[in-house]
């Protein structure tokens, strides 16, 4: 490994965490009662366990007891695994530094997590109907899935968009579509999340303009734009512009939200897609936090006060199959974020230190075979999110390895959350797994490995240079290929795929979409282009171009362009002409 001494920054970070819990777990001295447990543990292994193994061997060697990310799990955890553990310093109390046990003092005893189902397909009308359906059934927040043209800032009538309209989410090409999408929904009361990244600033401008046309001031709007461009280069690929101008747009949105929209989360720093691309749990944790710290650094470099904007940053993690690994990941994430914001950035407001997060169960874990069993997988994953202290949760529907979810499938997924919240009893106490020797040792281990990745990222000079060097992409591709090999060879189990396989036709109803949807959208766009105020439209696009070329915050110009009914593709093209376009990699 490259020597780290010559780089003062990383040395500084390293020095800070050397005092942290993660490091101590490996180097701490056992003292007093812990030392006694250690020797008793040894006695137990040599006598009781040894005898038992002769009669009843374990299912395999150490390789049989690994997490889905190939982390070794020991036979037993005791106080001896928590050398140097200090309750007040490493866990503390919920709502207090370092927030390991949760960001709120009473957690789900006061308020359950927000039940927020990711939804979107077809036209704005179709998705508006699905939103209303979900709210009627007890959903407490909205979450919007966009189609590929929207995700890439392309209009539905662009030739490259052929066949894509409304397929993986709702198609939104202008303010006109956004108005229909949220028609009749009280967006001054319910919060809305939008999964949009490359063109996030533009789509957010559509949303703000739609609210303003209904007389709702922007300051009243609550919600989240995903707007996490770094993980797009790392894993999800829905970027448009090169990293630096993209980061400028992100910082513009954070700055705008800080000044004008106090209830908006301008970035949802996302590990979800990193994990879906095939990363391990530790990679998800480390790459995502590194992205988050990069946004903070860019905002500080712009001259913003960390306590002005950090409270509005939020996170989004995956909930995969391995129950305890996921819980350890969330707990480690909270502790690391709080420490870095406090020690590296000098944040003073507790809210700046809170790692608030949304969770989605793992789409990549769903099987097309025996789809009903996905309900069970999703339940276990969702429970991990809840026991990990999530603020918001999406549960996947059983049919999502086959198609977008049907009404019934999505209702069962929502009911899964309601059962966990209101029947299981796990919400009666805060952080019920806190103090488990296993969970605490695993949390420490996740933290230690996360800092090792931070060091490796620093060796490249930070996240953006590491992206350009393909560091993240190749780490993820390697992990993903290794996992597929384990599944193919049966070393890891995927029920219904490589074990307990049955031959049966899949008999669940699949969501049918309007086959004329794309054609109708093209007609709608032709009308929009003909009927809008051409003068206002032209001036607004020119203002976007001028602003993009300068240093002013771009949001006011984008909101005006939205009001002028400039389309997503038109605005994106103006920005492309100024910022350039980021090419896709063909590295495998």
């Amino acid at each position, binding site marked *: 490994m490259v020597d780290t001494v010559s780089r003062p920054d990383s040395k500084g970070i390293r020095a800070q965490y050397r005092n942290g819990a993660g490091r101590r777990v490996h180097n701490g001295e056992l003292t007093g009662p812990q030392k006694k447990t250690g020797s008793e543990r040894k006695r137990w292994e040599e006598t009781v366990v040894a005898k038992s193994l002769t009669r009843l061997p374990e299912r395999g060697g150490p390789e049989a007891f690994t997490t889905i990310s190939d982390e070794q799990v020991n036979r037993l955890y005791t106080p001896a695994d928590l050398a140097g553990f200090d309750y007040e310093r490493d866990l503390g109390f919920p709502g207090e530094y370092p927030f390991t046990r949760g960001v709120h003092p009473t957690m789900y005893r006061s308020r359950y997590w927000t039940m927020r189902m990711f939804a979107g397909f077809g036209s704005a009308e179709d998705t508006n109907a699905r939103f209303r359906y979900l709210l009627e059934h007890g959903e407490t927040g909205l979450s919007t899935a966009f189609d*590929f043209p929207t995700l890439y800032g392309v209009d539905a009538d662009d030739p490259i968009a052929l066949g894509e309209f409304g397929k993986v989410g709702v198609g939104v090409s202008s303010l006109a579509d956004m108005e229909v999408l949220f028609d009749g929904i009280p967006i001054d009361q319910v919060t809305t999340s939008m999964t949009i990244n490359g063109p996030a600033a533009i789509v957010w401008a559509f949303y703000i303009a739609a609210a303003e046309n209904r007389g709702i001031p922007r300051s009243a709007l609550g919600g989240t734009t995903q707007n996490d461009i770094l993980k797009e280069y790392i894993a999800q690929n829905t970027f448009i512009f090169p990293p630096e101008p993209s980061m400028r747009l992100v910082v513009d949105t954070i700055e705008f939200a800080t000044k004008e929209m106090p209830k908006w989360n301008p970035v949802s720093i996302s590990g979800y897609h990193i994990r879906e691309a095939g990363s391990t749990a530790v990679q998800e944790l480390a790459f995502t936090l590194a992205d988050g710290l990069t946004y903070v650094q860019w905002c500080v470099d712009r001259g913003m006060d960390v306590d002005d904007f950090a409270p509005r940053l939020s996170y989004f993690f995956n909930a995969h199959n391995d129950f305890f690994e996921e819980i350890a990941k969330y707990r480690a994430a909270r502790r690391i974020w709080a420490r870095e914001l406090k020690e590296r950035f000098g944040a003073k407001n507790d809210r700046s230190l809170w790692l608030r997060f949304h969770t989605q169960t793992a789409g990549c874990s769903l099987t097309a*075979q025996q789809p009903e069993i996905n309900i069970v997988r999703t339940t276990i994953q969702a429970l991990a999110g809840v026991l990990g202290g999530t603020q918001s949760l999406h549960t996947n529907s059983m049919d999502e390895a086959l198609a977008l979810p049907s009404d019934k499938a999505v209702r069962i997924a929502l009911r899964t959350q309601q059962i966990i919240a209101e029947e299981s009893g796990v919400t009666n106490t805060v952080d019920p797994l806190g103090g488990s020797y296993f969970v605490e040792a695993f949390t420490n281990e996740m933290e230690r490995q996360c800092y090792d990745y931070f060091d490796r990222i620093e060796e490249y000079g930070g996240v953006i240079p590491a992206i350009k060097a393909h560091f993240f992409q190749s780490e993820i591709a390697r992990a993903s290929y290794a996992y597929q090999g384990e599944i193919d060879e049966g070393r890891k189990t995927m029920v219904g795929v490589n074990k307990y396989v049955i031959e049966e036709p899949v008999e669940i109803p699949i969501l049918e979409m309007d086959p004329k949807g794309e054609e109708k959208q093209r007609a709608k766009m032709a009308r929009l282009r003909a009927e809008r105020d051409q003068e206002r439209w032209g001036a607004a696009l020119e203002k976007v171009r001028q602003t993009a070329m300068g240093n002013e915050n771009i949001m006011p110009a984008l909101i005006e362009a939205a009001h002028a009914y400039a389309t997503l593709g038109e605005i994106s093209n103006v920005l492309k002409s100024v910022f350039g376009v980021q090419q896709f990699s063909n590295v495998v």
Partner: protein
Amino acid sequence: MVAKSPQKQEQTERKIRVLIAKPGLDGHDRGAKIIARALRDAGMEVIYTGLHQTPEMIAEAALQEDVDAVGLSILSGAHMALFPRIIGELHRRGLDDVLVYAGGIIPDNDIPAIKEMGIAGVFGPGTTMEETVEFVRSHVTPRGVGEEE
């Protein structure tokens, strides 16, 4: 059929060349990258197009790279709009012998029509890497100095 493959590989003295292509605006590349690596590890020469390829770009790459097979990876649901155009562009360039197969999220109901277009195999979630490798090995048209089977 499967057992013959390694021998055939030796006789032809030419590695099987495969183009792994991502048509349309689909951004999902986990599967495409895994398959590309698996084919490469199995001794084939693999060219990966990267994302956002139009039918023309895919057919042109197949021609320029002189491939034996084209694997189309698509999870966006746009396959019924894009596949016929890709096949059409391949034919327009005289690439009638190139093996074309597809993988991704493709509903069962669409498969008969896709096979009708001349796409030889469709692989959904749960397919092993070995299945795909063997499919390509046993379905490509022999080329170079190899003998007919």
